């Protein structure tokens, strides 16, 4: 079961990162074109600022799970020297579980926030694009991150019991 969840989260995280990469290159393209349009044609691209904000939020959230899978989030590494292997695994199991709960809380609150904005029909100033879909993506990304952390916690727990 855990291995199946791991395979699915891994696969979703990989595809999410490809979309995140497209978002990053889109930020570069939109911003550069906006500079050219503004300086040389005296006509900035309408809504470029908002598009960059949205793309930025997407690129960060869509990379979260990939980063956790690849252990890219920095941590204090002195524990590797201070504690035994068994203690480290036990601590990893507990801390990953706590992190997963925090991520689920963030996902829940982001969904509540997005629903509120949806009901209030809040849109961006220039382009009139609604905020809520992007915030829903952020919420979904935190659910994915929580799953990755939960799997890590279970794996560490299983290793500790060996």
């Amino acid at each position, binding site marked *: 079961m855990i291995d199946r969840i791991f395979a699915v989260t891994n696969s979703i995280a990989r595809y999410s990162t490809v979309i995140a990469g497209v978002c990053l290159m889109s930020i570069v393209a939109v911003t550069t074109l906006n500079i050219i349009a503004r300086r040389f044609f005296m006509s900035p691209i309408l809504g470029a600022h908002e598009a960059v904000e949205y793309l930025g939020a997407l690129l960060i959230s869509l990379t979260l799970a990939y980063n956790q899978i690849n252990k890219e989030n920095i941590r204090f590494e002195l524990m590797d020297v201070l504690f035994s292997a068994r203690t480290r695994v036990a601590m990893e199991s507990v801390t990953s579980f706590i992190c997963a709960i*925090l991520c689920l809380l963030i996902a829940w609150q982001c969904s509540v926030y997005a629903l509120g904005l949806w009901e209030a029909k809040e849109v961006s100033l220039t382009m009139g694009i609604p905020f809520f879909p992007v915030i829903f993506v952020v919420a979904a990304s935190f659910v994915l991150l929580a799953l990755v952390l939960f799997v890590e916690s279970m794996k560490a727990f299983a290793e500790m019991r060996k």
Partner: protein
Amino acid sequence: MSGPIVGVIGILLLLLVMLTGMPIAFVFGVLGFLGVIYMIGLQPALNMLALDVWDVFGSYTLTVIPVFLLMGMIAFHSGISQRLYYAGHVMFGRVRGGLAMGTIMACAAFSACCGSSPATAASMGAVSLPEMRRYKYADSLATGCVAAAGTLGILIPPSIAMVIYGIMTENSIGKLFIAGILPGILLTVLYILAVAVMAFIKPDLVGPPAQSSTLKEKATALFSGVGETVIIFALIMGGMFLGYFTPTEAGAAGAAGLLLLAVLRRQLSWKGFVTAVMSSLSSTAMIMLIIAGATIYGHFLSLTQLPIVSATWVLELGWHPYAIVLVILGIYLVGGCFMDSLALLLLTLPIFYPVSQHLGFDPIWFGVLVVVAMEMALITPPVGINVYVIKGVARDVPLQTIFKGIFPFLIAQIVLVLILIFLPQTATYLPSLMK
């Protein structure tokens, strides 16, 4: 229990929980969330979670981070570091200790494209260390000089550390970037002087001079090695200085410019491009998650009123302002020995920044000083990340040898701090000219 006491307990708990190996972003987030629950209750704490995360993830200002990271990664994967090193080698190779000097110059030039110190150290280390070892440079000098010169990455603009300082303290990122130019050049000169002094005192630390180059070779190396870096640096810094670009626009223009040059010159493979994008995404998500966690934690600290109380307390001590600055720098130096410099910055800024403002210091000057302190933290044992990066490149060199080699460059950094304290215009003059 009074608010400030809760704040102090919160900081102690933070340091304790970090020891468990929990990722720093989550340590900030979990303890900040629990702290806010303790101070004002569960519902406000839950509401704050979504707002803080969205404020960070959806911030236009923070999009400066991925674009500058991408620019640095493209520079790395398109071989700019090799060309810069070659230029430094050809220009300085004949001087005693010239390869180390050339490496420092190349690091400074690479820093003009890359805002990350570990990335600067890694890319220049991979190119320069084999060459310096081939010319019989002592391992301590060779590794120490690259590790230290790599720290220029966060002082010479663009700088990720300055972006984070600017956002956390609501100061102009553009002004901070421009403020880093003169201290960055000064530190480069001080590093070169450190090499010259070492070569004079202990001639066996440096190998024989490299082969001499003709004037044509020098001109070619300089043009092909430094030309594109100068153009990109002039574009992004000039644009910001003259008020044409926002920092995000400067980063995007720089990344697009470098990408275009790399494609036209056939210096970037598809694999290199994908790796550059993936590395930028990874670092961005890692930094942003820490900032989001630190924002939650910062709200907890604000609720405890610890920043205001500590600022008032420091003023009541009646010490000379510069003595307080030296204490703050000392805390960064010691703290940097045990904690990642980014986490240290995010943890301490909510306390130290109000103190610096109560003392009447220029916020841009204080920002440059903090970044120099972070540079020291990057090379001091046992957590100096640049040292570990260099250890990764030169696996057979013991860590203590690298730390030994760092020492003269640490003195150069201390000299820069003293210059900044006694001549603050070094950091404030250029920003004062900005439009």
